[in-house]
């Protein structure tokens, strides 16, 4: 089915007696090569736009994010938080892209881009409060862990349903253009999300109206237990851009410099009115899907090994070392500092009362509560006053 004979454009020009359409696989590998700057040995091909300080600062962020994820998983194991979903191994895809956007650009995250929220100024303690769902939670304890929102950083609200943020990113950027603002939105999602209804409508609407948006797909190979090849038959995710008449790019997602450059260029095109770009970051989900998942049930540990060698942080460290921007002791200091920072943030967060006040149950459903919510709050307050068990968890049912 994929044979040379099947391309035969001349035959096709002759019309229906020609051969079937060329196999898309052959198209795509040519049209969408994997773009790299930082080789796996830490050497560089092509020039680098970012300054040494900028790279070093992003390295620091990636280290912090990695330490944070490991610490939070440990806290989940200790029962101090109920759930966690990290981005171990995908830090370059997150920070490389987020750092390439402008300060006025909006970010529409999935649930593995908390790094972008921190980069945009969300206090670490506030982030931890969201995980705890305590009285300090900016989300008022309304959402489960890892569903943070941070408006001051133009970082939208995360929802669990996959793909829903994609059309939001399109709408916001479209609105900005209507208002005459220069704003390009960045939408994050995994390769599993490319199967969603909202991926299709989001990219199609953006294509038709040339909306200034960057669609960033973290292709980490897995959607919980479903491998990339059972998610879609297209050889690359990038080629899906062809269905919407928009640009597509495929980049090594573990290469901070390449991700940054490709995103920067996509943003520039969008801002110049040349329309949206679908960026495929090829990376890998080294850990389980979340703390609720056990990957051993569906994938042999061996398959992960080759990817550990491609660790985006290690690669960047070697590069920075070579350039004389990072020595072992600097690195050790960074590690110590970020651990200390995390330690402090956890302490600060856990200082808040464990539960938000009862009234938060009914807050922000509507701008002002309706009579139903007012009555139900009173009803609940009375019930709780009579019987404290109304507010207590019970064993066996959790």
């Amino acid at each position: 089915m994929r044979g040379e004979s099947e391309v035969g454009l001349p035959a096709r020009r002759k019309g229906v007696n020609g051969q079937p359409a060329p196999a898309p696989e052959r198209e795509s590998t040519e049209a969408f090569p994997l773009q790299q700057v930082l080789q796996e040995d830490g050497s560089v091909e092509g020039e680098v736009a970012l300054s040494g300080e900028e790279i070093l600062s992003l390295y620091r962020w990636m280290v912090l994010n990695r330490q944070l994820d490991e610490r939070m998983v440990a806290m989940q194991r200790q029962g101090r938080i109920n759930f966690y979903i990290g981005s171990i191994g995908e830090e370059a895809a997150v920070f490389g892209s987020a750092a390439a956007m402008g300060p006025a650009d909006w970010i529409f995250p999935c649930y593995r881009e908390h790094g972008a929220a921190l980069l945009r100024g969300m206090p670490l303690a506030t982030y931890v409060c969201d995980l705890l769902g305590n009285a300090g939670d900016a989300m008022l304890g309304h959402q489960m862990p890892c569903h943070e929102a941070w408006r001051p950083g133009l970082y939208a609200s995360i929802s669990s349903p996959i793909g829903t943020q994609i059309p939001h990113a399109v709408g916001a950027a479209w609105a900005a253009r209507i208002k005459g603002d220069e704003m390009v939105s960045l939408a994050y999602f995994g390769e599993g999300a490319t199967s969603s209804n909202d991926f299709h409508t989001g990219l199609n609407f953006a294509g038709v109206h040339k909306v200034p948006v960057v669609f960033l797909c973290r292709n980490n190979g897995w959607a919980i237990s479903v491998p990339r090849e059972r998610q879609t038959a297209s050889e690359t995710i990038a080629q899906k851009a062809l269905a919407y008449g928009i640009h597509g790019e495929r980049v090594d997602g573990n290469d901070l410099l390449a991700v940054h450059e490709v995103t920067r260029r996509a943003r520039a095109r969008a801002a110049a009115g040349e329309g949206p770009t679908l960026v495929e970051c090829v990376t890998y989900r080294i850990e389980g899907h979340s703390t609720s998942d056990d990957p051993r049930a569906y994938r042999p540990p061996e398959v992960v090994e080759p990817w550990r060698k491609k660790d985006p942080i290690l690669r960047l460290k070697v590069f920075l070392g070579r350039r004389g921007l990072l020595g072992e002791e600097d690195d050790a200091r960074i590690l110590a500092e970020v651990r200390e920072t995390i330690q402090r943030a956890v302490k600060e967060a856990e200082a808040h009362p464990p539960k938000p006040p009862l009234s938060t149950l009914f807050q922000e459903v509507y701008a002002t509560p309706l009579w139903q919510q007012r009555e139900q709050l009173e009803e609940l307050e009375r019930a709780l006053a009579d019987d404290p068990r109304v507010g207590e968890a019970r064993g066996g049912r959790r």
Partner: protein
Amino acid sequence: MPTFNIIQAVNDALRIEMRRDRNVVVLGEDVGKFGGVFRATQGLYEEFGADRVIDTPLAESGIIGTAVGMALYGLKPVPEIQFADFIFPAMDQIVSELAKYRYRSGGQWTSSLVIRVPYGGGIRGGHYHSQSPETHFIHTAGLKVVVPATPEDAKGLLISAIRDPDPVLFLEPKRVYRAAKGEVPDGEYAIPLGKAKVTRAGHQVTVLAWGAMWHEADQAAREAEQEGIDCEVLDLRSLQPLDIDAVVASVVKTGRAVVVHEAPRTCGFGAELAALIQERCFLHLEAPVARVTGFDTPFPYSLEQEYLPRAPRILRAVRETVRY
């Protein structure tokens, strides 16, 4: 005051709000140059241009999904869903996103917009051009649901909906889109959401209705009068927020209630009204709250007149309730 039908009243409200506030935009299938399949957006494309009157590709999920994003950025989108029956592809964006965006972000973000939805039967449209899906949205906390019955209310309620801070489903009774005519005040005026209208005062039985069926309830009440039965008729106008005080006040007075709606009976809004009334007026009730509704089937084509809860069936229920 000009005499408008409901389409003209809706069109007038949209034009007034778009002139008043540059952030108001209209989007949907065929709403641009064509002015909408019911012509409710006619002339807006010419006056406000392609930037603010947007023809979209054929995807309701995309219409609502992008509208949510526009609203987050500060626009006030007024998307049109061509027929209520076609709102289901957008269900996830409405229920999971639009309704919960404020709540889930702890109020950091709000996404307020007005979804205009022609609904209801009686136009020979079969089950894909006739449904009344209000239950789905009333049951979804975070949404408001408004249904005008007359041109004057259509204009005043739509203006309020557009100025409201919460997301609103604005259900337009297409059965009486052109049939219901009336004088409509010039310029802007807002009719508050959540206020029912007593369209006929009476003391024997309360008839609760909205949208196209309010006209049938009104007709039934006139006929009841001939038989010496004195009905009080309420046009609820807004189902969420519901004017519970007006409902309770009327039923406490009459001791009897008949609820009318086109949607299938089971889990229709009539069930919620009956539940609320028996909770709050129990000791005043002299008969069970009666429901005159569409049947528990999809909306039919050939026998739609038999399916609709029109005046003759409402009148029967009124008689039975009064005689109970």
